[in-house]
């Protein structure tokens, strides 16, 4: 029998080497096909790199070969859990370029639909974020309410997920007869349900220990990283395009911009929860004031904007989504650029994760709220 040097054995067994861990692209908590490479010291993240592009379809290239009207459906498929919001930014950008005035009824219906979409998107975020962290119940509840919104969409638009709601100049259809009643019914139940989720999470000890102080970003850092949306507002920066640079019918509604204080995962959670309540209030106001009239402006059959360019952006559930269109006077855009909030927000993952544990990376990916269809385009 050979004598073994026990101390040496321990050294090799409990070595403190740095290690690279591959997470994704099939990992369920990466919300799609995001691959993250983590450099670890023990369980602490020391460096991080994102590998994206698995879903790249070349939307911007395709757009140069399609007419303005043909491009709209591609926008549904960018952020596919907030298709209506994506549509809105594109059609408004083209309308701006054409200088078309959209009828007020159409503007109101657009606001109602996009705010419903915001609630649906936040519900999906809430469910998946919670299940990533370990609270499975919330997902089941959140999807129950989201289903109601999707049903309303299905009856209005004809699709649940890639809802192609808007046209350049207005809407495809006017609201169906029971639309207002159904939305009101939904608005009656949803505030109580949001309370329910908050009872499950707000003071839940596990939830708190997994989110408070995780992924902290100061306001300056967040701005410097071009962060937008609830992720930025969680750091206390009051930047919401609905207020800052109002579009559609938003100036006519009264609502607040919820802000966080500490810029951590918990604050971003609170911001999104409060945003859902604000959305409910906006939809109520829009339903009360819903004007009668046409839903489609007079738009030329062949859309040929004048030579020039426009950048238009709106507040999507994920952040600032923008459309930058360069027109050369022909029926197809010379260049179309999508300003993708998920893609740009995802950059901050590195800054937020370094120094935290591997398990926290999952929470931070959740709190940024990305959709890979839009990250990769």
């Amino acid at each position, binding site marked *: 029998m050979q004598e073994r040097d026990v101390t040496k054995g321990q050294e090799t067994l409990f070595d403190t080497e740095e290690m690279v861990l591959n997470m994704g692209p099939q990992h369920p908590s990466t919300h799609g096909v995001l691959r993250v490479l983590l450099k670890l010291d023990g369980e602490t993240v020391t460096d991080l790199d994102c590998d994206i*592009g698995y879903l*790249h379809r*070349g939307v911007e*290239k395709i757009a140069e*070969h399609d*007419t303005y*009207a*043909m491009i709209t459906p591609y926008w549904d498929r960018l952020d596919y859990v907030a298709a209506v919001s994506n549509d809105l930014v594109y059609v*408004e950008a083209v309308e*701006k*370029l*054409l*200088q*078309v*005035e*959209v009828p007020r009824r159409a503007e109101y219906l657009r606001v109602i639909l996009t705010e419903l979409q915001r609630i649906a998107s936040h519900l999906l975020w809430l469910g998946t974020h919670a299940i990533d962290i370990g609270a499975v119940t919330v997902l089941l509840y959140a999807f129950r309410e989201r289903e109601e919104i999707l049903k309303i969409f299905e009856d209005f638009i004809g699709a649940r997920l890639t809802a192609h709601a808007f*046209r350049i100049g207005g809407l495809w259809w006017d609201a169906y007869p029971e639309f207002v009643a159904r939305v009101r019914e939904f608005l009656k139940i949803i505030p109580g349900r949001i309370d329910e989720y908050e009872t499950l999470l707000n003071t839940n000890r596990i939830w708190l220990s997994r989110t408070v102080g995780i992924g902290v970003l100061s306001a*300056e*850092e967040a*701005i*410097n*990283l*071009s*962060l937008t949306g609830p992720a930025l507002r969680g750091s206390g*920066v009051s930047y919401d395009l609905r207020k800052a640079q*109002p*579009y*559609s019918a938003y*100036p006519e509604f009264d609502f607040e911009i919820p802000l966080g204080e500490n810029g951590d995962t918990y604050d971003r959670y609170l911001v999104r929860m409060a945003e859902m309540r604000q959305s409910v209030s906006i939809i109520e106001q829009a339903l009360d004031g819903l004007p009668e009239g046409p839903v*489609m*402006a*007079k738009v*030329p*059959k*062949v859309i040929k*904007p*004048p*030579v*020039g*360019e*426009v*950048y238009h*952006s709106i507040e999507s559930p994920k952040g*600032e989504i*923008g459309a*930058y269109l360069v027109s*050369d*006077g*022909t*029926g197809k855009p010379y*260049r179309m*650029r999508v*300003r993708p909030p998920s*893609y*740009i927000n*995802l*950059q901050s993952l590195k*800054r937020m994760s370094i120094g935290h544990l591997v398990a926290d990376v999952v929470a931070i990916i959740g709190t940024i709220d990305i959709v890979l269809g839009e990250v*990769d*385009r």
Partner: protein
Amino acid sequence: MADENKDTPESHNDGQEEKGREGDGRPAGSPEGGPPKGSEVGADVPEKAQPLPPEAGAVDPAAEVEEKVKPGLTPGEEVKTEAKAENALPGVEKPSKTPMVEGASAEGGEPPAAKEPPPARPAPPRAPASEKAPPPKAAPAAGHKPAPPAKKGPSITSDITDDPLINRIRDRFSGAITEAVATLGQQIIRVNRESYLELCRFLHDDGEASFDMCTDLTAIHWPERAGEEFDVVVLLYSVAKNRRLRVKTALAENAACPSVTHIWAGADWMEREVYDMFGIRFDGHPDLRRILLPVDWPGHPLRKEYPIEYRDNEWTDRHIEYREIDYDTSLIDVKYSERR
């Protein structure tokens, strides 16, 4: 629709918008980029002043369409006029009278309409562009910025003249700012590449500007603009002042652009994407790699010469491993030919 900037396009007059367009390198007839903007503003003017009427008489229907558009007054008007002109062309149905019906069928009706008019919209951008290319070269001698001709269609672009911040920037970077225009109320300044980085730093640090967020950074390819094939476009936003500004700089085919990542950390992935899609290198970028496409992808897709179809076949062939599989054919008792 509410506009973000204080400057409204109302203030434009024909003279100013003329300059704006040319600065963009896109004179009316040649939206693709046409004559170089290096040879500058004065270049285009004579060509627009004199040759346009004869040209319009001589050339194709598209020129006619454009001609018809010219006299329009407001930008909104332009769109309508243009649409009418198009409808009046042979092969296209006359416009329907009832607004709602027309509206409702507009998009549905488009594909056929798009098929018919090819004669009606024959490459106005390309052919005239090549015709027009020579004059600018000869013209620079004609001095700079003479009063532009009044005969000019409505434009959505106008010069910025009275904005305090833009004036400040102009004073400080006098020669470097080659253009400052407002399109639909959105302010755009164009700077030469040498001063680009300095300007960006100024815009970030200066208390009055304080553009603390880089909303977006992208590029546009103008292959016909010799020596200035690319525009790098930076969209800036100031959270404190709630104001936007677009900075453009032109680059030659193989020139590198200074990176602004150390000013705005958010520009990191945006510059990587521009590198990936256009092949523009950014000097000083900490980690310039492809981001959306595989590392060994051939070419840069958003360049205009890059075709759109079958681009992945070659790459896929290189990376996919084909294997012969031996099927036990005896197990298949029904022949394909016998199946219905």
